[in-house]
């Protein structure tokens, strides 16, 4: 067992180190899965809000999903690796690496009036290793380290998260205290989404990927049709992301409620919810809705409105459709809009269309070729991109 622990930890750290170089932002979970499998993010991820390293269930669920499984390639030991727990399932270890090849930024005129496209580059988006230790049936301690946070690609991005969790049983509320992200809307796996960004400056997220602040969260998922969470954090990183709207050290409060209507006969799962976040001069409201069915796929939509008291206002929407051809081959399409106005700036109007394929050639490795079409008030950029995602 110790050999396996060392092997997993070393390979995880190697993955994490390899991905450190350039610019980076962490990615997050796949909300599609909550709609097709009728499960919560907390079922499969160490972080109950989703994103990053998997727990035992999440690890097991994907261990044999791939166009070609490891045993077919003669790697029997990899094929048999379907458990990431140690010490009698008290310790879970996971990791998540995501790289993207894309043109970042916008086209521009050079001094001679010639149009210059941004360079295509490899971007490590996520590079996270984490663990969860279940000290007692009602008490656990979890932490993850995201070395790309050193690169400070986005203001307010964290280097780590970690918390102590108290939950006497799954039917009762869960208290998390530590470095956490206050719950808001849906957490996606792609950091380029407009929905959490400021459309007036597309490089600036309002809630950065892997944003965390010190505080506490109380969540309830005791009923199969309802989840509620409220959080209060000291908004130090939120201040870095929104210096005009949030003073350092102010309290940030968030609340989110989601209901999960299901039709047993049709096997259709859905969610419908709303979110609120407020800190100093920043206020955000969000609404999310999703519909899904096993083997059919899912459709989800979200809208986020934000305001900073001096007069900046943004409104963004997202619609995403995912259709699995196979468990290891999923077609995906996304449409996003973003609008914003602020004193002294031209009004922003952004449209984004993405079509892609989530392809899992071998278990725990995903390739995602995508075609992205982004149109703003001042430019259009259409490009192909490629994501590589590996997890354990």
């Amino acid at each position, binding site marked *: 067992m110790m050999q396996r622990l060392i092997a997993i930890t070393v390979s995880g750290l190697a993955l994490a180190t390899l991905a450190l170089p350039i610019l980076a932002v962490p990615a997050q979970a796949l909300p599609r899965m909550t709609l097709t499998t009728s499960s919560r993010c907390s079922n499969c991820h160490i972080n109950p809000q989703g994103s990053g390293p998997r727990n035992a269930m999440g690890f097991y669920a994907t261990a044999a999903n791939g166009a070609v499984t490891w045993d077919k390639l003669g790697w029997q030991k990899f094929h048999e690796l379907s458990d990431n727990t140690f010490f009698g399932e008290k310790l879970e270890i996971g990791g998540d690496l995501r790289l993207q090849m894309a043109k970042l930024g916008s086209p521009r005129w050079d001094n001679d009036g010639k149009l210059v496209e941004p360079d295509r580059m490899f971007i490590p988006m996520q590079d996270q290793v984490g663990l969860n230790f279940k000290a007692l049936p009602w008490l656990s301690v979890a932490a993850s380290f995201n070395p790309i946070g050193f690169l400070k690609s986005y203001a*307010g991005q964290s280097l780590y998260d970690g918390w102590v969790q108290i939950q006497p049983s799954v039917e009762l509320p869960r208290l998390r205290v530590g470095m956490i992200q206050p719950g808001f809307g849906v957490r996606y796996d792609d950091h380029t989404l407009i929905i959490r960004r400021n459309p007036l400056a597309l490089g600036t997220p309002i809630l950065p990927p892997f944003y965390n602040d010190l505080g506490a969260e109380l969540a309830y998922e005791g009923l199969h049709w309802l989840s509620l969470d409220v959080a209060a954090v000291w908004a130090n990183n939120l201040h870095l992301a929104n210096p005009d709207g949030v003073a350092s050290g102010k309290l940030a409060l968030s609340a989110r409620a989601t209901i999960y209507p299901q039709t047993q006969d049709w096997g259709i799962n859905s969610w419908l919810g709303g979110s609120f976040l407020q800190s100093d001069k920043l206020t955000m409201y969000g609404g999310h809705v999703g519909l899904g069915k096993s083997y059919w796929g899912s459709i989800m939509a979200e809208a986020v409105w934000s305001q900073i008291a001096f007069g900046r206002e943004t409104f963004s929407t997202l619609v995403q459709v995912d259709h699995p051809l196979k468990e290891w081959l999923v077609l995906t399409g996304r449409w996003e809009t973003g609008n914003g106005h602020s004193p002294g700036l031209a009004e922003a109007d952004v449209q984004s269309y993405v079509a892609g394929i989530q392809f899992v050639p071998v278990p725990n490795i995903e390739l995602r070729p995508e075609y992205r079409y982004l149109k703003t008030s*001042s430019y259009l950029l259409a490009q192909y991109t490629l994501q590589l995602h590996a997890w354990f």
Partner: protein
Amino acid sequence: MPQTPRQPERRQFLLRIGAAAGCGALVPLLHGCETAELYTLPPLHVEVTFDLAKSPYDALKTVGASLDVTFGNVDGLLVRVSDAQIIGVTRICPHQQGNIKWDKAGATLVCTTHAAKFASNGAVTGQPNNGDTLTTMLPTWAVTFDAATGKGTVQT
């Protein structure tokens, strides 16, 4: 001679390898669909003459005054930094394209979005307040000015 039945597992394996190759082939295919457009006019190299006796340049008669202008398709800012000197800079911050204003009290150019500061030669003198590190200078224009006649030129 009896034919050997095709093994479904082998067929499935080949099918999946084919799907992988198909996904790989998608990338170069999509390469042909790439495009980029700009909805702003390209910058032109122009020379503009000004006379402080005439509007709107009369706004620059007093030291510390500034004037928003658009020359050669580019938004810019002229600033009377001293009796003898007028400077010209583009008004778009190289950080996140915020609006540049002249802070008369601090005698510096400041972005209204994240408060990045620039010297009159475009050098970064204060970093954006969102934690980013900015190294790109604010583009400047060549300005000549004769304080005696109140006339000058701007080259973009």
